[in-house]
């Protein structure tokens, strides 16, 4: 495992939100912009967190609040220039305009992104 001087590696991230069959399907991609592999360590089976907020900042949904996860430590290594995608689904949201924020829940690696979605 490579040693990194910086305890927290920062990855590039982007998120897309697509409304399909009444659900919002989120796709969160992280990319390693550095020339060293980045090891993302996780406490359990959860890899990402996502929230949906109204324009007044009120949180209306949080991915991890409705789910449980396997309780084994885990890790994913992202190669230099490499990319990994994590999915999450927001089931059956109320119609409206939302800000979606999504981030990696790894220890010692940060990645976050946001987007907007309109649910008809």
């Amino acid at each position, binding site marked *: *495992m490579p040693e990194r001087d910086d305890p927290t590696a920062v990855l590039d991230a982007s998120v897309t939100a697509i409304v399909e069959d009444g659900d919002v399907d989120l796709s969160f991609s992280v990319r390693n912009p550095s020339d060293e592999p980045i*090891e993302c*360590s*996780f*406490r*359990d*089976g*959860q*890899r990402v967190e996502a929230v949906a907020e109204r324009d007044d900042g009120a949180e209306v949904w949080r991915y*991890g*609040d*409705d*789910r*449980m*996860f*396997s*309780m*084994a*430590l*885990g*890790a*994913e*290594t992202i190669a230099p220039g490499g990319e990994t995608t*994590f999915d999450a689904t927001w089931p059956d949201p109320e119609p409206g305009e939302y800000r979606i924020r999504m981030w990696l829940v790894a220890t010692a690696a940060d990645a976050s992104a946001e987007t907007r979605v309109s649910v008809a």
Partner: protein
Amino acid sequence: MGASAMLDNDRGHTRRDALKLTGGALAGLGLTGLASAGDADTVEVNVGYSAASGERAAKAEATGVVREFNFDALTIRVNENAIRGLSKRPDVRYVERNGTMHALDQQLTWGVDRVDAEVATANGDTGAGGDVAILDTGIDSDHPDLVDNLGAGRAFVKARGKFAEDWDDDNDHGTHCAGIADADDDSQGVRGVSTEATLHAVKVLDKRGSGSFSDIAAGVEYVADQGWDVGSMSLGASSGSQALKDACSYAEDRGVFLVAAAGNDGPCGDCVGYPAAYEECLAVSSSASDDSLSGFSSTGPEVELVAPGTDIYSTIPGGYDTFSGTSMATPHVAGAAGQLMANGYTNGEARSRLKNTAEDIGLASNEQGAGLLDAAAALGHDSTDD
């Protein structure tokens, strides 16, 4: 061997131990399980020869001779680049990489050893007749260490990919837990705490190791409706679900012994997750091989037992791997509970018995609960000198 993974234990980049290595074709062997001689370019190979000139050629290329057989073969360390030339010689019958065949010898993992499950087995307790459900990512339907113990399966989340069963394991986690609870006792791989209980795969977690409250609750309800003895839940979250709590009550009332992982939020106090924190579930924290509390283990007043969870070697689809987590501690308890219930204990009696016979390893009560799981003592066998 196989015990070096710390956090480095997810799919795709760990050292895995190949299930078995077939001799012969060099190209058929991956890097897994090779006896590396340290130098990246040097490998250990078995060379069979048909004439003394072949033997001499092999020795000439060797950086070291490991073994000379009484038949026409030898094991040497050699630079990888020399293999091709050697294997083309007419006086050389074969060159094969000396894969380490450790997967073919069953090993007693430190966890199964620490809870004295092998003492219970030696005294005839195998879990035969017990039904242990693994509520998880599924179970490999074709694993040689599990297949003889597999009973029914049910998917509340279907396996994604090409699998024989919809409850097959598309992650690794469920198969790992199943092996800890109840891998069979044969000449290969690993053995579980219990060895002849019937394992049931209840797939409630997806390929990523995540599941909805509703799917998990449905899985618990299903276990109860089947009349199975044990529901093992190596899963959790920091917040609960009323539906899951209701399902746990339903199952407990119908005689199911429910055990759940305390969580991996440690070091922390009073941080046991759900469903472990529900009174219907026996919450399990995690220990390391030196009897210390695993650094990742959640603790709290709900913890009733501690069991091995750091660097646990067990089954995964197609092989074996080492994982850490309160997920790994949980099925140690599930396997022991399955044995008790196979012997006629009710779920409540099994829970009391496991706690009353646990070994005090000197941790705080919110860390170890009643103590470390002692499968032999729970089953009435003396393991004090083991």
